[in-house]
């Protein structure tokens, strides 16, 4: 079967330990002297390592998240606590009171039925969930935050300890902006009681995330202001 394979295909077999003794020794000799093949070998090794790194990052993120959420829920505000509950439930995809919507504009739709919500929620991709989890790690997220430090929503004050968090005493929310590395092309949001996680791609390739207990109309204003 393998006799008709080209050098690159053989290289793939070599990397995967799928060669027999004779084939392996013959290929090793070729690999030692063929500089083009050696370069390809380096590339394949780098790619395999990158994939493994990504896999490990995702595993770490998943294993750490429950600890982080617990810690933050104990340590910080009502928002974080509510958010923690939201995320934990959303990972399990079991709750009918957590609703994901799709919208083609800033307007946030009314709640849909629980059956539809359940169906919608199953469509949420893994990457999106990871991004929302990432948002809860706001200490980390802050380091990549592109929120203009001079930007301040009307009627709100900035949390001096967390510069991307805003409150007016009654309502509080956090804004996070970064490159749209998850390639979200439509706004999405989750609602859990009074709390909302709202993700919106901007025209310039950035992604705005808002988490907190703000009303949809205020979330709209925030997004319009940021998208200017």
């Amino acid at each position, binding site marked *: 079967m393998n006799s008709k394979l080209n050098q690159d*295909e053989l290289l*793939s077999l070599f990397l995967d330990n799928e060669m*027999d*003794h004779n084939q392996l020794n013959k290929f090793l000799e070729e690999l030692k002297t063929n500089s083009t093949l050696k370069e390809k070998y380096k590339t394949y090794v*780098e*790619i395999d390592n990158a*994939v493994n*790194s990504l*896999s490990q990052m995702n595993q770490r993120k998943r294993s750490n998240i429950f600890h982080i959420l617990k810690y933050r829920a104990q340590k910080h505000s009502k928002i974080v606590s509510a958010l923690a509950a939201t995320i934990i439930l959303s990972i399990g995809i079991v709750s009918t009171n957590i609703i994901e919507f799709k919208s083609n504009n800033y307007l946030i739709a009314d709640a849909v039925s629980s059956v539809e919500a359940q169906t919608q929620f199953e469509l949420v991709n893994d990457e999106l969930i990871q991004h929302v989890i990432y948002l809860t790690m706001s200490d980390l997220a802050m380091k990549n935050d592109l929120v203009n430090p001079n930007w301040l929503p009307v009627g709100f004050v900035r949390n001096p300890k967390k510069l991307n968090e805003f409150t007016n005493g009654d309502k509080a929310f956090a804004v996070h902006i970064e490159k749209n590395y998850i*390639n979200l092309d439509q706004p999405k949001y989750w609602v859990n009681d009074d709390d909302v996680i709202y993700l919106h791609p901007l025209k310039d390739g950035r992604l705005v995330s808002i988490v907190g207990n703000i009303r949809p109309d205020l979330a709209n204003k925030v997004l319009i202001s940021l998208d200017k």
Partner: protein
Amino acid sequence: MKTSVDEALVHQIKDGDEDAFELMVIKYRPRILASLLRYTSSRELSEDLTQQTFLRVWEKIDTFKGNSTLFTWIYSISINLARNYYVSSQGKKTSLTDSNENLENEVIDLKNPENQLLNNELLLKVNSCLKSMPIDLRTAYSLRVEEQMPYEEISKIMNVPIGTVRSRIFRAREILTKEIEGIL
């Protein structure tokens, strides 16, 4: 019967084959460097320790008996070298993690996998490419590379012939190679 690439490489390296040694370095250097980066939080030191590690591997290859995997053996050498470095540097009261601002920034990055993801162009490209790859290719490739499954096992899981598994994994690698052209 299949033969392990590492077994073949070790056998040849023990015979003094420098080309075989180079192939082994290409295979394991990135992983050793990444491990040391996590351990030391310093790129310069990690590069240095990686070099020392493979020098030690070349010198000590005759003592490798195959009781562990080759990577585990190399890894233990690298960690011992790192530990020795820190023991000896404690007396000099040097701290590599707070010596300057750039290094400090690097430390922050290294301790934060998400920052690594955001800042590493290779990882970004690979991640994006994997997401858009046909599911059959991605599954076969992931089972092999992330789960370390042999082709035979993958063929059972995916219910396809081994030749199809081989082809899918190769095609996945080719797609990824094309995607990262110009980065490496």
